[in-house]
Structures are given as structure tokens and as C-alpha cells.
């Protein structure tokens, strides 16, 4: 029974780390959504405590929001003790989620007609804890309005009339609200609003895109700058971005979005930024992993989908730079055989088996495989190679081998495994690799359920303490 629970939980954590209910290379969005939804229902029905505890782990925001929603939808099934723990976890997790995700969650709760006392209290507390309610009111006007109405909360001061009265607005005393009012007829005020709000007003006033981008630039958030760089360049309006401050995986995605000639031209700058981000992500562990051999998947399936463009490849590229920092001696092996990581592009088949053999020939201390697990040249070779290697050539498990999989496989309700003898864990961002490699021991089946339970409890305690 315990072993089964441990298996189910590992499966759920892998799914919650990787799936976003979006299209993947193999399989559409509907498959992903249905599969993930089923898995959530299964886990909440059988292991409610562990399900809630997953909020404390490195799962992705989409699944965190889904867990919160499912917990609130089924409040009636929980005991008083469970509710207290869940309440703490939910409040803590909502504080770390980006606000737009939380507002989406509130909208979903409203649409699902979930309006129990606990839900209302959680919405009320989250809204009350927002650092700048006026800013939220302007940037997320409709969403905030819906949330307040749903939770029966009356906002303070001028926010009430701002949100709930329509038609003619009188003069406001709050500066940001006043700017918003003036932006309806005065172009200069548009540039003092948050970018997303200003964009709507720019369209209304028919402001030229290049001019708009040039003047709104100081108001953009870090991600907005990043996202708009290339389109701004087309409009000949430079949007300054600080590559040095970007997290590693996001930076890798950006690099892969650039055409190859541009990557060649900016090689120094891009490599420098990637290295710097990797050093930051590695932290004090840098250089402590000994000889590391990595098999990195740049086959055609690493191109992801239109919704997750080149995501698996971006994760592999980020892992490449991170592992180079973590290792004392590092051997990268791309499936295509390429040597220049910066020019990576998804192309060709996936001869994982051959590459694993190449990697083992370097006699590494650690073997990491970053791949979606579709080993097709030929099918099952990697699995056989790993099985025989573990059974015959390395029975004492001197080498730490982990398969990191960035893609959720809807049919299996899990990430695709390569072999029973090598643990597979779901991977979201390359930054999580050190934690995941530690976590992988639970999937090998050599630790008991008690260990897993202890790990969960420790993570929950730490998570609640931090906030």
C-alpha cells in the first residue's frame, strides 16, 4: 500500500512539474488537460494531505493554481485539521504566484460557483495583502472587480466608485486613478500607466507603435521588456533589456528564439549572459559534481509546440550551461552530435541509446539525460543499454544516473520513462536540477514511503516558515 502511494505521488509530482495543459509535440492540448485533470481528481480523492503538501514543492504555477482550486471546490470533504493546514499552504502559495494567475484562479472559482466561507476568506486576505491596491485596480480592473464581488468585499476609499460605477467618472484624488481617467482623452497620461493598460489606450488614441514603445519603455516590467524586444526591433524602437538579470531557462528560450546568424553575431554577449545566469543558479554547489556526462536531446521533438515553442530544447540548453558550472569536468553529448550548444536547433531523430553509450565511455561520476524520452533510433535501445549497464557493468551504482524529462506524457499520466533502472523525474526549469537530482532517489524504489513522507513534511515546514 505504501509503495503504491509513493508511486502515485511521484507520478503526480512529475506531472505537476511538467504539464501546463498546453499542446506538446506529441499530443494536443485537450489530451493534456483531460489527463492532468483526471490525475488531480485521483490524487485529491485518495491522498488529500499529500495533494495539499504538493503546494510546497517545486511544481509549476499552472498546477499550483489547479490544486488550490480543487482544494477549495472540495472543502466539505476536509476535516478541521486538514483545513487548517491547507489554509496555510494555500495562502502561502498564492503569495508567491504571479498576480495575474491568482486573478485567473479567482475567476475560475467564480465560474465554478465555488463560494464557501473559506474561499471568501482566502480571497479577502489575499486582496488585503496586496502591496498596492490602487495599482491592482488599474492593471487588473475587471479581475479585481470580479474577485471583490465574489468574496463580498467592499473596497476602501475611491476604489469602490472606480471599480463599480460605470459611465462618467468624476475627478479622483488618488494620482494613479486620476491618470487613468485623464488617459481617456489626454495622450501624455497614457505613458504613466502600466504597459498593458496603456496599450489599450494607445490603440484608442491611434498612437503610432514605435512612438508608443519608445515612451512607454520605462513603465514596462522585466518580462514585458524581454517579450517585446524582437517585435520592438521590427518597429525600430529599441527596448533595453538587462540579459544579466534574466533567469537561466528563460534566457535559453530567448537565445533559441534568435535566428542562427544573430546568435553567431552576438555570441560573446549571449554566452556571457548564459554563463552568468548558470553561475547564479549553481550557487555554492559550483564545481562540486565531479565528472559529469550529459546526454542532451536536440531532436526534432524538442521543438515543442506552437504553445510551448522550443521549450524542451530551451530546458536542455539551460541544463547544458548549468551542468558546465556544477561539474569539475563536463562532457556534453547532444543527440544530433553537435558541438556548438549556442547554435542548437531541434532537428533529426533521437538516438539516445548511442549517446548514452558515448557518455558512459567517458567514465563519469554522474550521468544526466535531458530528454522527452521518445527514444526512436531505434526504439528501446537506451532502455536496454541502461538496464544492462546497471545490471552487469555498474551493479554497485557508483555512477549517479538521472533522467530529467521536461515533457508530460498524457497517455501515461507521467513523464515518459527510459528504464526502470534509472530514475526519471519531471523537470520544469534547469535551475531546479540540483534539487531534482536529490529528489530522484525516491523514484528508484529503494527508499520507503516513510522517507518520502518525511521529505514532504520537511518541505512543508520549511515552506510555511519562509513565508
Amino acid at each position, binding site marked *: 500500500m505504501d509503495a503504491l502511494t509513493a508511486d502515485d505521488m511521484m507520478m503526480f509530482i512529475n506531472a505537476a512539474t511538467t504539464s501546463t495543459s498546453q499542446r506538446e*509535440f506529441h499530443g494536443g492540448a485537450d489530451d493534456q488537460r483531460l489527463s492532468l485533470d483526471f490525475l488531480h481528481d485521483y490524487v485529491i480523492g485518495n491522498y488529500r494531505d499529500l495533494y495539499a503538501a504538493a503546494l510546497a514543492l517545486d511544481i509549476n504555477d499552472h498546477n499550483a493554481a489547479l490544486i488550490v482550486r480543487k482544494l477549495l471546490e472540495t472543502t466539505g470533504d476536509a476535516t478541521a485539521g486538514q483545513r487548517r493546514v491547507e489554509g496555510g499552504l494555500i495562502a502561502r502559495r498564492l503569495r508567491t504566484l504571479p498576480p495575474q494567475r491568482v486573478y485567473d484562479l479567482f475567476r475560475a472559482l467564480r465560474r465554478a460557483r465555488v463560494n464557501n466561507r473559506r474561499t471568501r476568506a482566502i480571497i479577502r486576505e489575499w486582496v488585503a495583502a496586496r502591496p498596492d491596491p490602487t495599482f491592482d485596480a488599474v492593471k487588473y480592473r475587471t479581475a479585481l472587480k470580479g474577485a471583490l464581488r465574489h468574496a463580498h468585499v467592499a473596497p476602501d476609499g475611491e476604489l469602490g466608485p472606480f471599480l463599480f460605477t460605470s459611465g462618467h467618472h468624476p475627478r479622483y484624488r488618488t494620482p494613479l486613478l486620476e491618470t487613468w481617467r485623464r488617459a481617456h482623452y489626454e495622450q501624455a497620461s497614457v505613458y504613466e500607466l502600466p504597459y498593458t493598460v496603456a496599450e489599450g489606450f494607445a490603440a484608442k488614441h491611434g498612437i503610432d507603435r514605435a512612438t508608443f514603445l519608445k515612451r512607454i519603455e520605462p513603465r514596462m516590467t522585466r518580462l514585458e521588456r524581454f517579450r517585446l524586444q524582437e517585435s520592438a526591433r521590427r518597429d525600430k524602437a529599441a527596448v533595453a533589456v538587462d540579459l544579466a538579470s534574466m533567469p537561466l531557462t528563460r534566457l535559453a528560450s530567448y537565445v533559441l528564439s534568435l535566428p542562427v546568424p544573430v546568435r553567431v553575431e552576438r555570441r560573446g554577449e549571449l554566452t556571457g549572459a548564459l554563463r552568468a545566469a548558470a553561475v547564479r543558479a549553481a550557487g555554492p554547489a559550483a564545481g562540486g559534481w565531479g565528472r559529469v556526462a550529459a546526454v542532451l536531446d536536440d531532436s526534432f521533438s524538442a521543438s515543442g509546440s506552437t504553445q510551448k515553442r522550443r521549450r524542451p530544447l530551451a530546458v536542455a540548453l539551460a541544463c547544458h550551461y548549468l551542468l558546465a558550472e556544477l561539474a569539475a569536468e563536463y562532457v556534453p553529448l547532444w543527440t544530433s552530435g553537435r558541438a556548438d550548444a549556442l547554435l542548437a536547433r531541434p*532537428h533529426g531523430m533521437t538516438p539516445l541509446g548511442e549517446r548514452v*553509450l558515448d557518455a558512459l565511455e567517458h567514465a563519469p561520476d554522474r550521468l544526466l539525460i535531458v530528454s522527452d524520452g521518445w527514444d*526512436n533510433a*531505434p526504439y*528501446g*535501445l537506451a*532502455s536496454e*543499454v541502461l538496464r*544492462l549497464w546497471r545490471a552487469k557493468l555498474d551493479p554497485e551504482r557508483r555512477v549517479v544516473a538521472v533522467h530529467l524529462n521536461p515533457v508530460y506524457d498524457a497517455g501515461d499520466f507521467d513523464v515518459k520513462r527510459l528504464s526502470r533502472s534509472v530514475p526519471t523525474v519531471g523537470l520544469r526549469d534547469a535551475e531546479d536540477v540540483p534539487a531534482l537530482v536529490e529528489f530522484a532517489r525516491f523514484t528508484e524504489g529503494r527508499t520507503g514511503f516513510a522517507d518520502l513522507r518525511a521529505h514532504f513534511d520537511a518541505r512543508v515546514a520549511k515552506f510555511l516558515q519562509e513565508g
Partner: protein
Amino acid sequence: MQLDLTGLTTRAAQVWGGVRLVPLTRDEPITGLRLHDRVYGDDPAIVEVGPRTHYASYIPHGFVATWTDDDTPVATYGTQLKRGAAATGPPPHGMRLRIHRRMARRVERNRLRFLPLHVAVEGYLALHFGGPEVVWEEWSQRAIRRGLSPRVEEAYSGAEVEGLADALKHFEIHPGQCGVLVYVADALAAAFVVPHPDDYRALHATLVQDMYGELIHYYATLATPAPRFDVRLPDDVASLADLRAAAAREQAEWARFHDLAMAAGLLGESYATNRVYRMGDYTLSRFLPTFRLKEENHIGELITARDGRTAYLKTFRLSEAQIRRGHLLTTLAAHDWHLPTAANALRVTEPQLGLRLQAAGFGALLREDVLARYRAG
């Protein structure tokens, strides 16, 4: 003649549902013959580096392009060879298409596209059968004047073959891949070989616009997922070198099994070829099977180099009804279209053969009064 795939290596197959795609790679691409530039269109993804080394080019059957200044699209009728890659002007055997204005607008100007299916199949089979050569009295005026053309043959577009589009979409093209064998429910549906990997990359997606026989369509609809044939390695390994050797053996074993067992129906048979055109080192021919009843029969087009290597190959698997019709026609052709001797060879009486011709859809070829006499018995 037999099909010769020397120089092409069979690689590990990729399976999606009931469709198995077996890639063929060339160690040395053929550079003397290339897809005509016009077929590449303005696709920026495929850029040729360095000066051109090839002087002959080919245009696949059914390819539609605007060759002239007057914007009328022209379809290739049968695969064609051309001298010089940059030579402009429409192909010598082209069909001018009159496309309805609204339809033409929906198609992007420079996209790689092929003829609508029904036009393509009719043309295809007409290419193979010319009609009676000796004017026996039984044949109608129409058969003599116009041959069997136009014949209506039925086939399904690849888009209608269940799972094929997905299989092609998820297929990971090998570097150096110059061909593919398409299996549906492990029945060989089509073979496709081109001279150069770049050509293959350009044409891979067009396999979904190709035509497939009725049989393949049925198989695809009813098929259960094809087995993946996962690799199994023997347990007696002592070193990594052993492991590598075992893996290599396994690969070779698959290639051998595929060529000898799975593709036997295509590669093991002999074909009657008809040389269409010869240019420099390359010969374009069309081939017909021997029309063995209730067996695999493929027709196709072939370009061979002087040394016998296959540069271009495209096949179509005939359905059962087509094989029966083909069998009738070849028997007739073998007996100079003389009904009594052909009937003798088929071990039926002449009226029976006449009725069989009618049942096979060739009734219009026989004179009306002759047919009436056969019916009367």
C-alpha cells in the same frame, strides 16, 4: 527488372498508431540530379550552399507551379527530367490548369503543392495503358481512338488515411535521409526515394497529399497500433564495447529483416519497365507489376543513374479491384487484344470474358452489338 536500392541504408522505423515509417538514408547523396528549383519555391529554409554541381533536375508527377508570365498554374503530367537546374519554361508534358478564381486565391502563391487527387490518379493510370493496338472488330471506335483514357480510378488522399498525417508530422527526419517506406498496418503502402536529403526535406510533407489505394485506407481505418519492435539486447555483456557491438548487430538485423521480409513484396518482384526519357546519366521509366492476383502489386516511376542506382522512386500500391483490372488488361495486351485467345488463356469462354470486361468497368470499350451478343450468351 527488379528494383535496386543499393546505396540506401534502412534505418530504425518510427511508429505512430498503425503507421510505420521506415527511413532510408544515403551515405553519399546523388548530386548530379536534383529537384527542380521551382519545386523548392521561395522556401527560405532550404538554401543551397556553394556553386551548383548538378546539371539535371526532375519535377515530381502532379507538381503544380506557375512557369509562365501569365500566372496560369501548370501541373506536371508524369515525373519529368530537365536539363539544367535553372532552366525555366513549363515542362514539356504539362497540363494547364484552370482553377476557379476563389480556389486559386486560397492557395499561397509559392507553396509546394500537387494536383488535386482525382486528376492525378486518372492521369497516372492512363499513362500506363494505351488501349488496343490491333483493331479487332469487337473493339468500339472510342477505345481505338482514345485508348482507355480517360479512366476513372479511385484512390484516397493521404489526408484521408487515418493517422498518416499525424505520423508524418511527428516523424523525425534523419540527417542524410533520402527516402521513406510507408507501412499502414504493416502493409507496404508506398515507397518514396529522392536523390538528395534536401529534396527529401522539401517533399516530406507532401506525402500527405499523395494518393493511396483503397486497401490502405481500409487498413488505416481498422488498424490497431503497429508493434514498435523494441530492441532487446542479449544479457551476456562484459564491457561497454560488447554493449555497443550488440547494439550495432541489432540495427543490422533490423535492416536485414526489413529488406528481406517487410519490403519483399516491392523489392523481391520483377517489373515490366517502360523507358520514357533519357538524359545524360539518368533514365526515367515507369514500371508495372506482373499483376499477380491477391498479392502485393505496386506501380511507379523510377529514375536510375547510369550505374543502376535508384535516384528517384515513387510507388503506388494497387487495390484488389485495380489488380484484377490490370490482370485483365495485361492478359489482353499479351494476346494482342484478341478476345478469343485471351479468353482461352484465362480459361473462360469469349462471352464470359466480355461480361467480365464489362463488370470491370471496360464495357464502353466493346462494340455495343458485340456486348449484346455476349449477354445473350
